[in-house]
């Protein structure tokens, strides 16, 4: 072990300028399919196009693993570290360590509070929640529901983003509850975003409160769990359900009329923007960006690129396909072919 050590310490100094290398840590693969199916792909494409070496890994929701991966990337000689933190604490520990080692950092998709990364690239998660809330309001209005009981299937209690989503949709729904326009129904968080548990939880909600008229599900998986339960009572389509992530399953549910909306986040744009910043950092340049976000703990501004999420309903499912996020082949299988045609998807 001792033989290599002086080589590596001297080698590190030069590697910073010589070979740029970018480390990316994704958070997990189970709470949302996007990280492995979309982000990894788009980031890799962007780095490959620029001819920059990149190491993209996934912490699988385990923050010990998250830190280990960060350690290993720094050990491996990464010059830029791009993280999607699992929580701000470990995120900050990783960013601090990286900074002390002279590694540039980017917060991708989630802001690390107090972390002080060079850049922040993201969608606005509270905005995602707001879109969900507004979508549900619209669908309920379309159905002409009177004093509907609304159930909320929140994301994992251990996921900070789930809290942000909830802040978003509650900001829309709370006034309606308060004014008596809507009736607040059961409001439960689903551990680990687990779809199987979500089904049981929603089934029990429906048993306890049979007159639920609207479901705010935090993502497409939870939405699908609720739809499965509703189908047994043939209530699917009558009770609007929301979602997020524009998954194939979610879009199909929308086409079938079982789901009222989902939120599409143009991951490709986000990935491209982040990759551009990382590549410039790796090359030792500091690129100027327009936006900024104030870190609530340090009160400092973090230079940011913020993208806007889009609400998807039956009318604009087509946009998602056109964007290349979901392929028509995947979406328009079997029974859905006809519905695709009807929605103008080729």
């Amino acid at each position, binding site marked *: 072990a001792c033989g290599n050590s002086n080589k590596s310490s001297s080698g590190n100094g030069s590697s910073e300028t010589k070979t740029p290398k970018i480390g990316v840590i994704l958070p997990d693969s189970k709470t949302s399919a996007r990280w492995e199916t979309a982000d990894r792909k788009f980031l890799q494409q962007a780095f490959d196009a620029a001819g920059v070496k990149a190491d993209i890994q996934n912490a699988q929701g385990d923050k010990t693993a998250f830190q280990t991966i960060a350690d290993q990337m720094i050990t491996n000689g990464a010059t830029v570290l791009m993280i999607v933190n699992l929580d701000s604490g470990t995120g900050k520990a990783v960013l601090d360590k990286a900074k002390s080692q002279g590694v540039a950092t980017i917060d991708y998709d989630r802001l690390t509070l107090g972390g002080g990364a060079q850049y922040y690239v993201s969608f606005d998660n509270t905005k995602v929640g707001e879109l969900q809330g507004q979508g549900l309001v619209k669908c309920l209005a379309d159905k002409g529901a009177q004093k509907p009981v609304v159930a909320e299937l929140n994301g994992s209690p251990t996921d900070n983003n789930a809290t942000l989503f909830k802040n978003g949709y509650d900001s829309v729904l709370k006034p309606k509850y308060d004014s008596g326009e809507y009736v607040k129904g059961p409001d439960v968080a689903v551990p680990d975003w687990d*779809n199987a548990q979500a089904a*049981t939880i929603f*089934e*029990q909600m429906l*048993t306890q409160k049979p007159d639920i008229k609207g479901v705010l599900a935090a993502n*497409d998986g939870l939405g*699908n769990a609720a739809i*499965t339960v509703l189908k047994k009572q043939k209530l699917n389509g009558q009770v609007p359900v929301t979602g997020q992530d524009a998954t194939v*399953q979610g879009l199909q549910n929308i086409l079938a009329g079982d789901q009222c909306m989902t939120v599409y986040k143009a991951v490709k744009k986000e990935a491209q923007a982040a990759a551009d910043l990382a590549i410039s950092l790796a090359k030792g340049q500091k690129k100027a960006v327009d936006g900024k976000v104030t870190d609530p703990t340090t009160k400092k501004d973090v230079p940011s690129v913020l993208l806007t999420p889009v609400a998807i309903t039956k009318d604009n499912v087509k946009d998602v396909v056109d964007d290349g996020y979901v392929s028509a082949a995947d979406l328009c299988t079997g029974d859905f072919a006809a519905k695709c045609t009807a929605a103008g998807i080729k």
Partner: protein
Amino acid sequence: MSNIVVTSEQPPVDAGQRPPAGLAAYARNYGARVRGGDMGALPALLGLVVLCVGFGIARPVFFSATNFANLFTQGAAVVAIAMGLVFVLLLGEIDLSAGFASGVCGAVLAVLLTEHHLPWYVAVLAALVTGVVIGTIIGLLVAKVGIPSFVVTLAGFLAFQGVLLLLVNNGTNISVTDPTIKAIDSDGQLPPAVSWVLLILTVVAFAAVRLTRRAGRIKRGLVAEPLSVIILRVGALAVIGGVAVYVLNLERSRNPAVVSLRGVPLVVLILAVIAVLWTFVLSRTAYGRHIYAVGGNREAARRAGINVDRIRISVFVIGSTMAAVGGIIAVSRANSVDPNTGGSNVLLYAVGAAVIGGTSLFGGKGRVIDAVLGGALMAVIENGMGLMGVSAGIKYAFTGAVLLLAAGVDALSRRRAAAAGLR
């Protein structure tokens, strides 16, 4: 065979001690056994009753026909996995991979159905075969290579998680729309008339088996169950089964005009058949006897000429195959697979179901019905907590406390057994 030794003029051991034939005496004897601590499934049942009453008081809807049906469909996957784990636990082994193995088998089913458009029976068969293969590999590594089952199945736990992720293309959900698969644990019901016919057939068959056995024993001069006890047992089965079928045949739909929800959920029939099958295997065949022997004293079993390695491999095969069944049920219930299928607490709930039911982690002690009772207990807790609608933190803490309470009822009532010197 025993011509050498049966030359004695002494009476057989049992002679003169033939227990009384009356029901009253039988009940008295049973009472003494219970007081002495030999209670069988009684404590688990007691815990179950306590819980049901508790939840029923807190949320009256707990006792509705809808919720009764929910209970079955919600608990089915865990019960299936737990039944397989009973076999593994009977040998003092453990299968940590059962949860994700069920996920992998479920994913195989879903992929074959949706991406390869195979008919449902081919896909189901493939899922089951996947389970068999997984079990065989685990069994070989444990029995032939000699790695402790904890380590092998911990590796499996990790590896299958990865395989599952790869099968579902790194995190997408695969929807399953096949109506037969969906019928299993989602929307399949037995027509009410069929349920009644099946129940009657079951009760008759049960009575016939018991009566034939009794007749055979009396003919050979052995102690037999009193007739009255058999009547009581058959009666109990008929009454409990009858009530359950009656309730499940009530209309559960909120909108009977649109859709009628009546009848015993299909999954109940499937699990009942499997439970009867495995109970038969464990208690009436030489193979089952050998499982108990290997679990009780592996060396004694080996000396008795039992092929211990084969038994060890076979239980892992049964364990993983039942995990596959659990996976199929889970897919049916969720109408989809995702990387969490079989993950989260599925494994711990399944092992917990078997253990709470009374199966020992040290081998040699356990029955299939344990898994069913323990699984019912877990399902009731989950179901009841769902009705309470509390926040996640409180729900976890409360679930733990309720579990402890149910197990405590069991433990306290078994203490007398220890005091009486029976363990």
